[in-house]
C-alpha cells in the first residue's frame, strides 16, 4: 500500500483493488488530553472477506479501535485507510458510510417508531437508488434473517433478537465491503446471542464482506478467521 497515495485519499485505480480493505499503521489514541492512553501503536491489515475478532476485556479499548478503524473517530497519530481511502476527511467518511461500510452496535440503535422496512431504508437515504430496488434488497435480507413477516412491524413491537437481526440487515443494505460490529449480540441472552451471531456470520460471508468484530466473549472469536488480543493499548495475534 502506497502511503502517499492514501494520504491524498485517492481512489485506487480500477482493476487494481487493494488486497487489504483496512490498513492501520502505528495508530495511537488517548483521551482527556493524553491523560487516558487507550490505543498505543497498533498496526494491522485486514483482507477482503476476512473476519477478524478484536478480543479483550471490558475497557481494553476495543470500541475505541473499532471507531478509529471505521473512521468514526480520528487517531492522534498514525494512518488508517479503508479501501485505500482516508476516512479522516468528512467527505470521504460520508462516502464510505454510504457505500462501503456497515455498522452493528451492541444496542440495535434503530428508530423505534418506524417500521423494520423504514429502518432498513435509512442507510440508502442519500443514495439515488430506485425505491423498488431498495425495498427488494430489504425484503431479501429480511428473508435471510427470517423476518419477512416483520417488515411492516414497528421496532417497538419486535423482540430483542428480532431487533438485532434488523440491525444486521441495516448494516448490509448497501452491500458494504466491510462490517464493523461492536459486541453485536452483547444485549441478548446467551441462547439468542448464539443464534443471532451464527446468522450474522453466515450472512456476512455470503455477502463476501470483511468483518471486524469487537467482543469480550471468546465464544465468538472462534467463528472468525483470526483474532487479535487487545491489551494495554496493543493488538497482538492470539
Amino acid at each position, binding site marked *: 500500500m502506497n502511503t502517499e497515495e492514501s494520504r491524498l485519499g485517492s481512489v485506487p485505480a480500477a482493476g487494481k483493488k487493494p488486497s487489504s480493505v483496512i490498513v492501520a499503521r502505528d495508530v495511537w489514541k488517548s483521551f482527556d488530553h493524553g491523560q487516558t492512553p487507550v490505543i498505543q501503536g497498533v498496526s494491522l491489515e485486514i483482507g477482503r472477506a476476512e473476519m477478524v475478532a478484536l478480543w479483550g476485556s471490558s475497557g481494553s479499548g476495543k*470500541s475505541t479501535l473499532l*471507531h478509529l478503524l471505521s473512521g*468514526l*473517530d480520528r487517531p492522534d497519530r498514525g494512518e488508517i485507510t479503508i479501501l485505500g481511502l482516508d476516512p479522516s476527511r*468528512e467527505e470521504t467518511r*460520508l462516502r464510505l*458510510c*454510504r457505500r462501503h461500510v456497515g*455498522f452493528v*452496535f*451492541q*444496542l440495535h*440503535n434503530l*428508530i423505534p*417508531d*418506524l417500521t423494520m422496512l*423504514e429502518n432498513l*431504508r*435509512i*442507510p*440508502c*437515504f*442519500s*443514495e439515488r437508488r430506485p425505491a423498488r430496488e431498495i425495498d427488494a434488497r430489504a425484503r431479501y435480507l429480511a428473508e435471510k434473517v427470517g423476518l419477512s413477516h416483520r417488515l411492516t412491524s414497528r421496532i417497538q413491537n419486535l423482540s430483542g433478537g428480532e431487533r438485532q437481526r434488523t440491525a444486521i440487515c*441495516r448494516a448490509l443494505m448497501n452491500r458494504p465491503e466491510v462490517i464493523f460490529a461492536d*459486541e453485536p449480540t*452483547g444485549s441478548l441472552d446467551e441462547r439468542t446471542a448464539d443464534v443471532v451471531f451464527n446468522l450474522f456470520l453466515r450472512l456476512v460471508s455470503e455477502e463476501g464482506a470483511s468483518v471486524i468484530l469487537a467482543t469480550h466473549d471468546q465464544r465468538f472469536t472462534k467463528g472468525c478467521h483470526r483474532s487479535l488480543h487487545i491489551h494495554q493499548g496493543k493488538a497482538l495475534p492470539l
Partner: protein
Amino acid sequence: MDFLKLIFINIRRHRLRSLITAAGIGFGAASMLCIVSIVLGAVGMFQNILSTESQFILFERNVSDLFFSSVRASQLEEIRNFPLVKRVDPLLVGIVSSPNHPIITCFGVEADNPRLRQAHWLHGSATAFGREKDAIYLGERAASFLKATIGQEIPIGSRRFLVGGVLRTANGFEDGGVFFPLSLAQEFFHKESQASLATVELRPGASFVAFQKQIDARFPDLIALEDKEFNRSYSQFRILNVTSWAIGICSFLLGGMGVANTMLMSVFARVREIAVLRVCGFSRQQVAGLILGEAAILSGLGSVVGCVAGFAALVAMNAAPQLQGYVRAALRMDLLVGVAVVTLATAIAGAFYPAYFASRIAPAEALRFE
C-alpha cells in the same frame, strides 16, 4: 426513506411538547397581528377625522399632541382669502368628563362642515345644526352610552346641554364623540376665537408647494402638512407605531427563544439517534435540515393557527357593538402574510443553534455510552 417522515416522527413522538411550542408561536403571531391591526386601525380612524375632502392639515408648529394645538380665527380668516384655497374647516377638539363617563371627546365644528352633511342623521338634521341654543349633537355610539336622545337635556362636564340630533358617521372616533357648534365649543372650553386645527382644501390645480410656502412665510407658528406627510410625522402616530413594533419584536424574540429551547431539548434527547443517522451516511447538513425542518413545521403550524385565530378575534372585535369605534382593526391581507412570514423566520432563527449543535454531534462519542 422520506425526509419529512423523519421529521414528523419526532413531532409525533413528543406530541404535547410540539403542541405547546406551536401554540406559543401561535399566540405570538395572533397577538402581533391584533396589536398591529388595532394600531393601524386607530391611526386610520384618526386620519379619517382629520381629512374629509381636504388635502392639508393645518396646526400649530411643534406641538406633540393636536389637543394642545391652537390656531386663531383671524389666521384662518386670512387663509380663507388665499387665492389658492377653496375651503377651510376649523376643528376644535376637547375632552370632558360627565358623571359616569370619564372621557367624552368633543368636536367643535362650523355648521357647514362637510362631515355633518355626509353623516347619516338618525334624529334631527344637519340643517338644524347650530341654530338651536345650547344644543349639541351626538355620535350614534355616544348617544347609546350616554343613554340620550333628541330633545333630552344631558350633563356634559359642568353644564347641561340639549340634544339637538343623533348622527351616524363613517368614523369610529366621531361616532363616540359629541359635536358642538364651533362657537359653543369655544365658549365651553374657554378657547374663544380658536380652533385646534383646520383642514384645508385647495382649488383644483393649485400648487401644494406654493400653499405650504405661503403658510410658512405668513404664519411661521403654523404648519400645513399634506395628509400623508402628517401621518408620517405626527408624533403620536410615531409613538404608536414604534410601540407596536417594539411589542412585536419582543414577542418574536420570546417566540424564537421558545423554539430554541424546544429544539435544543429535542436534539439532546436524540443525540444517539442523530449519531446513528450520521453513521448511516447522513451529512451534517442533512442533520441540520432535520432540525430546521422540525422548527419550520412547528412554527408554520403555529403561525397558520395563530393568524387564523388572530384574524377571527379581529373580525369579532370589529363586529362587537361595545367596541364599535374605539377598536376598528385594519383587516389586511399583507399584514397577515407579513406576520406569518416573520413568525416562520423567527422560528428558523431560533432553531439555528440547535441545528448547528446537532450537526456537530460526534458519532463515536455519542455511541460510546452503552
